[in-house]
């Protein structure tokens, strides 16, 4: 049986892991490759690295990180952060990344997803969607979740699938950093609307939240950062707990 996946996310800035509360107030949490290898040994099913370094030579920074990760880690990983062209994706995949995550660039130019999936196959194209509720409507936000757009989140998820996304990484900005649980209702709605896997992100605070996002939220994978980085939840315990709650897990 296919298992649900537990995915630690490592935000990387200038070669170091950081994680913000509501994407602000970044705190240092160590070397990304070392941390990634540790998570892999502990049973993480995949890793996501988001490079938030703002440099002119963005692609070079990404490729260096991808290379170091791919050399040292034997589970799949996704790279994201400012990926905006076929050349960026090609460079990351050739350096050993399994998937790339595209966010703001897809909002700017939705046709990019058609191009990328045609060129590289949809299995390696993850579209990251940052969503926030504005006056009762779920709207897509760009630029690290800071800029609202007028795009409806559910319609956007459908469009991204149609254009060739292989997975969706859904981050609820309303829940991110709150530790109050994932956005289960919205996640379930999107998961039932599209036919590609959904990675839910934002709001993990305890182990029960993960049970909820897989059952109520119908997520295929759950992503979290700070609760893993600051050792509030250990991955082996989390997976054992989920398995005892009848969630399919690789132990």
């Amino acid at each position, binding site marked *: 049986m296919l298992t649900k996946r537990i995915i630690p996310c490592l935000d990387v800035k200038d070669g170091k892991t950081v994680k913000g509360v509501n994407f602000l107030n970044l705190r240092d949490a160590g070397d990304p490759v070392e941390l990634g290898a540790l998570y892999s040994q502990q049973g993480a099913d995949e890793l996501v690295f988001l490079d938030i370094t703002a440099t002119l030579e963005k692609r070079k920074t990404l490729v260096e990180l991808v290379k170091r990760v791919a050399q040292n880690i*034997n589970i799949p990983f996704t790279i994201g952060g400012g990926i905006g062209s076929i050349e960026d994706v090609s460079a990351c995949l050739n350096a050993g990344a399994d998937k790339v995550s595209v966010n703001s660039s897809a909002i700017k130019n939705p046709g990019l997803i058609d191009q990328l999936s045609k060129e590289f*196959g949809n299995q*390696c194209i993850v579209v990251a969607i940052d969503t926030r509720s504005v006056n009762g409507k779920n709207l897509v936000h760009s630029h690290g979740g800071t800029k609202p757009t007028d795009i409806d989140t559910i319609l956007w998820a459908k469009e991204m699938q149609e254009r060739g996304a292989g997975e969706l990484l859904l981050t609820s900005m309303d829940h991110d950093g709150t530790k109050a649980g994932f956005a289960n209702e919205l996640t379930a709605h999107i998961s039932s609307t599209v036919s590609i896997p959904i990675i839910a992100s934002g709001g993990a605070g305890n182990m029960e939240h993960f049970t909820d996002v897989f059952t109520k939220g119908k997520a295929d994978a759950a992503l979290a950062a700070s609760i893993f980085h600051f050792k509030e939840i250990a991955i082996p315990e989390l997976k054992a707990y989920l398995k005892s709650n009848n969630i399919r897990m690789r132990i």
Partner: protein
Amino acid sequence: MKLAIVKYNAGNIQSVIYALNRLGIEPVLTDDVEELKSADKILFPGQGEASNAMQYLRARGLDKVIKDLKQPVFGICIGQQLLCEHSEENNTDCLGVIPAKVKKFPPLDKVPHIGWNTIKDLKSPLFKGVNEDSYVYFVHSYYVEANPFQIATTDYILPYACALQKDNFYAVQFHPEKSSDVGEQILKNFIEL
């Protein structure tokens, strides 16, 4: 030992190279016929789309070269599918080394099949030291139908052949290079065949 990786247009082989490096092997990435023929072992990995890959291999005469190889050959992911007879992906005639057919998953669950799933009915030296129901990592939308040459099966939407063997040709649908310790053992087993 000389291990050659078939160089063609199906991308993302860097992680396979790194995985071999971790096992102490420096593979040669080549589309040179003589170099492929003289290698002790051949890896045929890749991700991508079947018809483009076949077109590329035919244009360079690599289709015949691969079929005639006598040393152990290991197809991974699209490599496995290309070793079969035919793929529903853009109605493509493949290499026909293994008489099996590649089909698209019916849309009864999410496709692609992405993530960790179990392998069972293991029967090949490729799986020496690998337990039944071990977890490996899959990413694919097309699958190989159950057939007499299967050496392992997986269940997703339906039971299918996730690994094949015929004579010197071995192949798996999943990604051993991404399947943690289990995957490493399978790669090691191939190297030690």
